[in-house]
């Protein structure tokens, strides 16, 4: 084992390398490209005996990934943002094939307008695809989650593809100390892929994409995927116990921090949750009983764990780095569905949307979120959803609008008051 400073992207590449991925269909996109560059470099220098193929789009990439997984080899791929959306049709298809593989997504906000920076709308768009999802908060977790994902995806009780999500910039380009395990240790945790019944061969054609008209068989196959995804919750529990036994790092489906005696709880996913953790420390120093819950596993949704962790809390502040237009934050909605009618469900679930397009969430904002949520609990009134957006940011937008307005004048384009 060596402990060194590496980026989240390098950690994902190490995950694929230590998992001995056989086949890596690839297509570059910021901020993911470093992953496939790193893997390509290792392959070129004989350090990783895998085959990498550059496809002409993410749609083809995902098709190749699923097709290869259906032959019984271990497949790794990575994408981000628009690339994930471009692959979306095949995401659903490949999950339906019950082909296990691991896809790393480096979260980046979606167009329009275009950004390179992180939020979770891309990965949230894939939540209904049948891919299972693990969400990471540190570079170490990226490497570890990649190994864990293979174990879950390939488990005969599951046999579904799995996504590992890390945030663009805040993890992808950020170096943190990462323990890189020895290959032998990894082998004992993640043996070679035993494809079992997955044996597609050119001489023995199978069709993975059968047509089933009439609805009955369709319902059966879709629901089987759903049940397999649910079964992945137990498999996850076993796998992470194994992981802890071998590597000493623990990855429950949800991370809880200072939760036991907390009255107010932050709930969020991804790398900004470490900022929430730092804010919890500061709030505790100031005497506030605040805690943090961070789902790592988002598909299957860890409803039971969340109900248990949140029972008896006075209020939860859900911080969504995604936005469903016309609805609001997705995590908030899913949490409300999971808690509804359960014993001890917190009476107040406050919704905060922030960190869109790479926008920071400051410590002061976490403090304010805690304050607003506590007040809501005291008064028993759930506050309106709140966008984390400050006066200074509006001033910046107004300046851009003024310039655009001026330009329209200069160029004779429509003049609108």
């Amino acid at each position, binding site marked *: 084992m060596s402990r060194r400073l590496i980026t989240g992207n390098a950690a994902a590449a190490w995950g694929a390398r230590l998992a001995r991925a056989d086949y890596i269909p690839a297509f570059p996109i910021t901020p993911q490209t470093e992953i496939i560059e790193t893997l390509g470099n290792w392959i070129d220098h004989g350090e990783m005996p895998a085959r990498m193929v550059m496809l002409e789009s993410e749609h083809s990439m995902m098709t190749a990934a699923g097709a290869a997984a259906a032959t019984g080899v271990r497949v790794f791929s990575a994408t981000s943002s628009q690339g994930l959306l471009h692959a979306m049709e095949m995401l659903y298809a490949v999950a339906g094939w019950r082909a296990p593989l691991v896809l790393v997504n480096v979260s980046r906000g979606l167009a329009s307008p275009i950004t390179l920076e992180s939020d979770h709308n891309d990965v949230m768009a894939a939540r209904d695809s049948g891919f299972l999802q693990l969400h990471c908060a540190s570079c170490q977790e990226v490497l570890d989650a990649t190994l864990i994902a293979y174990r879950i995806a390939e488990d005969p009780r599951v046999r579904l593809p799995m996504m590992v999500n890390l945030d663009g910039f805040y993890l992808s380009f950020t170096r943190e100390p990462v323990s890189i395990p020895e290959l032998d240790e990894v082998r004992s945790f993640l043996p070679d892929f035993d494809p079992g019944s997955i044996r597609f061969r050119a001489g023995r054609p199978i069709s993975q994409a059968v047509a089933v008209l009439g609805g009955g068989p369709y319902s059966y196959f879709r629901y089987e995927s759903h049940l397999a995804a649910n079964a992945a919750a137990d498999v996850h529990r076993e796998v992470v116990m194994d992981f802890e036994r071998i590597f000493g790092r623990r990855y429950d489906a949800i991370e809880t921090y200072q939760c036991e005696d907390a009255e107010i709880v932050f709930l969020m996913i991804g790398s900004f949750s470490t900022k929430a*953790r730092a804010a919890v420390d500061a709030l505790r*120093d100031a005497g506030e009983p605040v805690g943090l819950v961070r789902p790592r596993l988002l598909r299957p949704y860890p409803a039971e764990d969340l109900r248990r962790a949140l029972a008896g809390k006075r209020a939860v502040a859900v911080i969504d780095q995604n936005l469903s237009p016309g609805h609001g934050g997705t995590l908030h909605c899913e949490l409300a569905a999971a808690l509804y009618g359960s014993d001890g469900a917190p009476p107040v679930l406050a919704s905060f949307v922030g960190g869109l397009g790479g926008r920071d969430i400051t410590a002061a904002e976490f403090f304010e979120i805690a304050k607003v949520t506590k007040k809501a609990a005291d008064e028993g009134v759930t506050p309106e959803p709140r966008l984390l957006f400050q006066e200074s940011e509006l001033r910046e937008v107004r300046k851009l609008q003024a310039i655009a307005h001026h330009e329209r004048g200069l160029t004779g384009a429509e003049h*609108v008051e």
Partner: protein
Amino acid sequence: MYRIRFHGRGGQGIKTASRILGSALFAEGYEVQDAPRYGAERRGAPIFAYVRADRAPVYERGIIDHPDLVVVTDESLVQVPAAAVMTGLCDRSVLVIASAAEPELWQQRLGVTCRVLTLPPGPGEGAALMGAASVGAAAKLIGQISAANLEGAIRAELEGLPSDVIERNVGRALESFDSFESHAGCVSEGEALTRASATPPAWVELEVEPTSISAPAIRGEATSEQVQTGLWRTMRPVIDDSLCNHCSWICSTLCPDAAIDVGSDREPIIDYEHCKGCLLCVAVCPSHAIVVEPERAVDEHRSDP
């Protein structure tokens, strides 16, 4: 926790500087987080990079609001609002600016009360070694990094580059490291986060606004004229008048940036302020009248006395 920000322009080695400092602090036993932050990835664009180091695991993330040390490798960035060089400087911060001017002058110009130090470029030294010079300075000012660990971090980070490049960078960094001896350790670790010291956010309610202003559209003409995209060019198309037969439309029509005008004599004129150097014109000219010169060669030629 130490919180350090580097500011520079793309191509000045800011990301490398932050990684070298991060690795050196890691070698000294610190938990470290370092990251670059840039918009469009191109030479000359303002970028910054940050390093956090602590004896305990680092949970803070993203932009550093309250830096203990800010290192600026390009003095022209100070007046660029988007670079936000001055953000969060307070009395106990240390500001290092790559500049031949005196520190007192910078203190006056910027109206700051914090310690300001300057990092004068060596004689005839271009931007290439500024990254090395600034990481040497930062390491000494923090005062927790040995020369050996600084050198080790540079060698590890630059591994694979030609050995003369590595030696030049090591030499420059160590020279800079030594030159700040009288200020060794003047950067101190910032406070842990506290609620009491935070200013509550001024959140605003957004109203629905007409799409004529709330859709992200810009009219490009004025901007296109102002932005000198010619700076992006690495290769320059040059028209050889003796070969050009003034067909007057092929290169000028096909240039994707409308950067070739046609003069009164039907002669093509390249607008180098906006030619991005895609070299499409070179490919399409039927009489092979457009040749390619590397910008670097053009620059060197120009700076010859």
